[in-house]
Every structure is written in C-alpha cells, then in structure tokens.
C-alpha cells in the first residue's frame, strides 16, 4: 500500500531523499515534465491551457538531529521541526542512514526535581542511548549532523483508521500522487516540497519558479477531538471529511476559492468540515509570499496526535480528500474561480 510505504519512509526536514525516490517512481509515468530543483523539491507539470495552478504537499517530517556526544556514549540531540519535548522520552528512534536503533531515556520519577516533574526534562536534559560503551565507541557509529526519526510502523486499527508516523504530510503526498494520475484542463504543477517543518523554506523556491495564479496546500492537520478539549478549540474531527482552512498563522484563505471547494464537495456528495483553528501554518504562506502573490487554499486531512511519534487518521477522510481535490481541479475550466 502506497501510504504505508510513504509513512514508513525516513525523511526528516533537510533529508528528504528516501521519500523523494518513492514519489518520483510513482508519478513519473503520469506527468509531462518532472525534475528536482536546487532545494530538492520535486516539480511536476501536467500541461494544460487553463489557469496555472500549483498543488503542494511537503515531503519532510518532523524528526531530530544529533548535535553532540556525552562521555558515557549517549547522544545529545535537537528537534528538526516542532516536536514537543515531552514526546521523545521512552521512544525508540532510528539514527542515521544505517538506521541504528536508539532509545531516548528518562530518569525515574523519584530522581526528577520538582521542576522537571512539572515542566518535563527538555531537550537539554534528554539523550539517545545507542548502546555504545563510551564516547569513542559512539563516534564509530554516529556522526554529528546525523538525523533521527521515530521507529513507528504503519498499521490499520479500529473501524477504518490508520496509525503511523509522518502523516503530516505523507497523507498530502499520497493525495497529490493519486491526483496526478487523473487528467485536467488547467495548467497543473504538482510540487512535493522540502523543509516545510523548519519554516516552509522549500516552497519559497518552487513557487518563485512557477509563480501560479492559484496555490493549493495539501496537509495533514491538527485534530484535537479528545474528551477533555472543548469543541470550539478542537480544530477538526476525525471522520467528518477533509478540512478546508479558513485562516492560519501564515495565510488568510481566499473566500471565493474556499466557496468553490465547498460547492464542489456538496455537488459530489463529499463530506467536508472547516478547519476551526487558526494556529499553525503551511506552505500556502510561502506560495502566496513570493513574486506578485496568488490566491491560496488548503485542504487537509485531520490527524490526531500530529507532530508526535504516532498519529491516527481516517481512511474515509483520506479518500474523500483525494476525491475533493480531483473534482475541484477538474472544475477549474473557466475564468472566475
């Protein structure tokens, strides 16, 4: 299954090679042009006579980078992208291209200071144990600058749900790959960007090159549909369909495109919800923020426990997200949208 392959691939920000290879192989037969730009973004083009549309998904996932050794052979590390420092303790990581297993340790509760118990240990106090005898031994296996990601494996559970790592944004990649297999009359650029999680950097270069009239970001997004979170700050609900963004930290989304997407959903009987949260940001901000700008929209699939070691998503949301994007793109045939 393609999503499984994408989710299990190890590609944190700045090290997107593995997932890039999978995507290139998958989409190449369906596009007129495909190349990798200087930043490492994949730019694909399906030529058309209509409006110039850029659809974006980012390849990178949040992860970690090794920044030093301790004398006992454990590794010091920092996050690549935003990972709450309460997440890594007691998780297993893959370190470096050789996928060396490492465990993030956490000292026992009775050894923690009052502050550590309340606030957590923080990255300064955490380390990765790869089983090395001492510093010299550790240096044989891991270099400073090596990356690390969670060892989480993709799987299905419950009633039509999937769990795994990197759903933000491999679900977006999956939807874009599937969408590129269809045909459209608009001039479509499918772009798989690098380094979204470290400040939406990849999208700047690719958008500058393409300079589209409409930009669509595909995302895995916040979903706090948990028992102790009031509905008005939950963002999205799992299973209620793809989420259409109204505003976030990097964009206020174009009302007319949003309306058009909603109309498409209603006409095709695709369930959808609004992303009722304005926190966070995505590549749409970068797409709009270069050259003379463009109108943007975002379609996302809700992911519970996003930016952690494991997220959960609904297969029907993913399928409906795919359907909604394809129908919307096929609808861009005339002026006005």
């Amino acid at each position, binding site marked *: 299954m393609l999503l499984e392959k994408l989710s299990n691939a190890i590609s944190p920000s700045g090290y997107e090679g593995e997932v890039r290879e999978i995507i290139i192989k998958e989409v190449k037969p369906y596009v007129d042009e495909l190349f990798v730009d200087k930043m490492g973004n994949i730019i694909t083009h399906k030529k058309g006579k209509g409006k110039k549309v850029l659809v974006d998904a980012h390849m990178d996932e949040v992860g970690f980078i090794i920044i030093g050794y301790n004398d006992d052979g454990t590794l010091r590390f920092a996050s690549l992208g935003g990972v709450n420092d309460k997440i890594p303790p007691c998780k297993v990581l893959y370190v470096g291209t050789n996928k060396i297993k490492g465990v993030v340790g956490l000292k026992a509760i009775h050894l923690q200071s009052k502050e550590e118990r309340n606030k957590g240990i923080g990255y300064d106090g955490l380390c990765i144990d790869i089983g090395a005898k001492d510093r010299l031994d550790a240096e044989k296996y891991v270099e400073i600058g090596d990356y690390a990601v969670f060892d989480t494996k993709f799987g299905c559970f419950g009633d039509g749900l999937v769990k795994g790592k990197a759903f933000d944004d491999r679900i977006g990649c999956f939807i874009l790959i599937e969408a590129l297999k269809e045909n459209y009359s608009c001039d479509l650029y499918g772009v798989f960007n690098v380094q979204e999680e470290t400040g939406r950097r990849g999208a700047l270069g690719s958008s500058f090159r393409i300079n589209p009239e409409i930009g669509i970001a595909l995302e895995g997004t916040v979903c706090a549909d948990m028992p102790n979170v009031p509905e008005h700050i939950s963002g999205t609900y799992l299973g209620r369909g793809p989420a259409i963004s109204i505003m976030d930290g990097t964009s*206020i989304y174009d009302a007319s495109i949003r309306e058009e997407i909603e109309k498409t959903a209603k006409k095709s009987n695709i369930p959808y919800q609004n992303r009722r949260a304005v926190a966070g940001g995505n590549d749409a901000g970068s797409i709009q923020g270069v050259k*003379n*700008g463009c109108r943007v929209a975002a379609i996302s699939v809700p992911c519970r426990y996003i930016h952690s070691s494991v997220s959960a998503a609904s297969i029907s949301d993913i399928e409906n997200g795919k359907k909604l994007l394809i129908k919307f793109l096929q609808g861009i045939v005339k002026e006005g949208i």
Partner: protein
Amino acid sequence: MELLKKLSNASGVSGRETVVRDIIIEELKKNNIEFNQDNMGNVLVKKGNGSKKLMISAHMDETGFITTFVDKGFLRVSNVGNIKIESLDGELVKINGLTGKIVNIKGEDDINSIFIDMMTDEKLEVNEGDIAVLKSGFSEESSYISGKALVSRALCYILLDVIKKSDPKDFTVYFVFTVQNELRGRGARAAAYEVNPDYAIVLEGENSNDYPGAEGNISLNHGPVLRLMDKVLIIHHQVREIIEKAAEKAKVSLQKTVSNESSEGGELHKEVSGIKAGVLALPIRYKNSSLEVAGKRDLEDMKKVLLNIIE
C-alpha cells in the same frame, strides 16, 4: 467627507476587502482614472512619466474577527490582525448584517476567552469563516473626525484625493491601495515586487498620545508624522529628504517619532533587490478601537505634503 464616511463605515477586514475596494474603484471610475487589480486584490493606479518610480501605498483592510465555531446563539472567533483582546468586553460587532456583543468575562488576553453573544435563540445565519467587524459610526466635528478604521480609510481617502489632484512631474507614481496590511503587509509585499519602485512611501496611522495619562509626543492637528524608525523599518535617508523637502515647500510642520509599531514597509522594503522606503503617518487617537479620532488639519496637511512630493 461623505466619501470618508462611506469608507470608514464600510467593512473590510484583512482578506475581505471587497466592499472597500468597490468604493475606491467606483470613485476612480467616476473620475476616469485607469487602474489595475492584481492577484492579491491590491488596486494600483499609475500616473506620470518620470524616470524614477515612486510607490505610495495606503491599506484598505482593518482588524476584525473570523468565526471559528457557532454554538447556537453564541459565536467563537479568532482575531484577524493584532487586537487588544482584554479591552474588548462590551464592544458591539457587526456580522452578516446582525449585531453581536463581545463578552470577555475573565478579561483575559486570550482570544479563546471571548465569545460573541448574538442575542437570539433562533437559527443563526452565520457560518465558520464569516467575518465580524467592530460596530461604529462616523462623525465630523469642527476640527476632528471620529469613526472606525480611520487608520486605513482616512489614508485611502487622502490617497484618492491626491490621485485626483496630482500631475506628477519628476516621478512615475504608483498609487497602491493594499490588502492584508494587518497580516504582516502581505498585499504590499506583492505589489512592491510587481512595481519594483525606486522609492516607496507607506501611509499609516500613528498613535496620538495627547490625552490624560498617555505618554509620548504625538498630538492631533500638529502635522503628519515622519516615522524615523519603527519595529520593522528604518527610513531611508533619501526618502526622508524627499518628505522633509516637500513639507518645507508646503509649509507644513512634521512631527517626528521612533515608533513601537509595525507597518507594511517592513515586508515591502526587503522585496526584489531592496527598496528605499519610509512611513508617513497620520496621528490617530485610540488606534484600532471602535472609535478612532483624527485631526482634520492633519488630513489636509498630509495631502499638501504628498502633492508637493509628486509635483
């Protein structure tokens, strides 16, 4: 002043500037002035044939609220742009033609602590994503004007008047009415890329501190404000000279300040290969509240300075 009244009373929260833009476009058409509307929704007017390009911008948008959740007769919202949330309790808002009252029971500076009471138990015609704006009314006194969104609309009004009256000599002037100023100047950035001017003057509002208990040196009706520096821009010395020379010629005294505010000049001056930019501001009391106050003499003085820059 009828035009300013219309502009001030119009709703035009960032990203939803259509109503304000339509008023501006109608005014331009009435005066047979050609214009362009770009991808972002900025309106651009080009005048003159000088060798150097000068861009003068005023923004169309104001701060407001976007609906994130509808709970029967109550709305949950997020702020669009920077708003002092703790001081909103009791303010009235307009949304889809309906009136609501903002309630911030705990007085906290957290948007999740406020809700809007729509004062009805019938089904609301309000959806997630709909925009609310502070409710207010424009009025004119002998030396002051008051109303909402003057920080945007008074400058649009000035710019419109300058467009109508000016006949550029040394510059090719691009007058730009920008969108999304309150969202870090996203509209102005795109326009600056398109125009790529030699000089840019951003028209803004400056907090006037001439009321009891306020600290600062800016007063209403004491002249336009030359911002030497703010949080995101240091004025370019050539732009400063252009403005100061024009003020002298127009016999208008300028107030000078180092401001703790931001403007679209921040994004704008970093575009393309860098743009020489500065901010000329209109003193405004109670900026970004439902009732801002500005001085009528300042409005006229600002027009005089701009006309002298152009001619």
